[in-house]
């Protein structure tokens, strides 16, 4: 009885020694078949896939990244994985401080530009009042004390969200992650120092 397909493959691949198949020594047909299999394997094994352009790999990564980003931002229910939730959480970690900052700047801009309009039943002029709750923070003084916040307050009076997006002043969770990834050791140390400093204040 001749060797079957599995036995011949095991012999051709070398996972089974020829000595384990006594039939082979006495059967010219099986020996020829095994020899042909090895020859085809030898030819096929040496064939590589043509190397694409060096630019292709980054292009492929970018295509995948964009597709994944689109997947993650799809409405809940159409996204097929829990990753969408994690990504949303990550987005919120970025968006929350941005929203808080925007609220501060907006409040500052309003109070600086028209403090007298804030009178009546509202908060005292120059004091932030958000959602009807008086924060007790003198925003005008805070902004006046910091030239950078002052500049932002001025800018906020001129810009709307579309302007901000159009000017490329927004960021995304991915770009933040990327920036961290690309930091040098010194930059990471500095970031860690500032983080620690800020955390001890809060």
């Amino acid at each position: 009885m001749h060797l079957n397909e599995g036995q011949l493959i095991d012999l051709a691949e070398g996972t089974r020694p020829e000595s384990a198949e006594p039939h082979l020594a006495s059967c010219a047909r099986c020996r020829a078949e095994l020899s042909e299999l090895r020859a085809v394997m030898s030819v096929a094994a040496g064939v590589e896939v043509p190397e694409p352009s060096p630019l292709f790999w980054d292009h492929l990564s970018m295509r995948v990244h964009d597709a994944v980003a689109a997947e993650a931002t799809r409405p809940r229910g159409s996204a097929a994985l829990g990753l969408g939730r994690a990504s949303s959480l990550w987005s919120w970690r970025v968006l929350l401080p941005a929203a808080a900052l925007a609220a501060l700047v907006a409040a500052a801009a309003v109070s600086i530009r028209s403090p007298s309009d804030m009178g009546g039943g509202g908060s005292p002029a120059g004091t932030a009042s958000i959602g009807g709750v008086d924060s007790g923070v003198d925003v005008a003084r805070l902004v006046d004390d910091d030239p950078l916040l002052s500049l932002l307050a001025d800018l906020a009076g001129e810009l709307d969200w579309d302007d901000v997006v159009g000017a490329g002043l927004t960021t995304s969770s991915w770009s933040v992650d990327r920036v961290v990834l690309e930091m040098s050791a010194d930059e990471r140390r500095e970031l860690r120092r500032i983080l620690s400093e800020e955390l001890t204040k809060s």
Partner: protein
Amino acid sequence: MARALAWTTPGATKLDWGLTVVQPNPAAAADAVSVRLHELGEPELVAACLEGRIGAFDLIVERHRRAVYQLCYRFVGNHEDASDLSQDVFLRAYRGLKNFRGQSSLSTWLHRISVNVCLNRVSVKAPQTEPIENEQHVDTRSESPSEHVLRGERAVRVRAAVARLPEKQRAALILRMYHDMSHQEIADAVGSSVGAVKANVFHALQNLKRLIGEDVR
């Protein structure tokens, strides 16, 4: 409260930033900064990905894109389809990552997805490879000796022949010969038995011999 702010505009050459700290867990914040994704092993990278660190999946793609592309290329025999299929593979991997249990290596898992994506695509779209005798893909860097040219032409014929094999034979041969998967791993990947995989490899080699004929000596 943040004391300084800076926005980076596109094209800026130097990063400058200030911080607003909202992280409720200082230890976690420090960890997030100190852990370099590139230093993570496979399981940690998958975990980081599931935690929502988008850069982690980018890194998975970077590490495995060549193997996935090559597998797809061998399946379809052309760059354009292989490129599209590779993207599909990674998108499907992203969707299914939460189901990855680490029972096999990530590369084996990705190979399994690749085979399924390729088989699905191939079943609705015939491979666009040219007939072997009309093959146009010649090595344009053919300023080399004639033997090198002949080897290049033979490689083209073999790749085209592989892409013309019946689906299951093609999958078994590619995974076994070019991606070093065991018969058992291939059987798991294609939903088959070890015996069937060996039979498919056997018939794939026989068909390959017939298709490339005179080159096998």
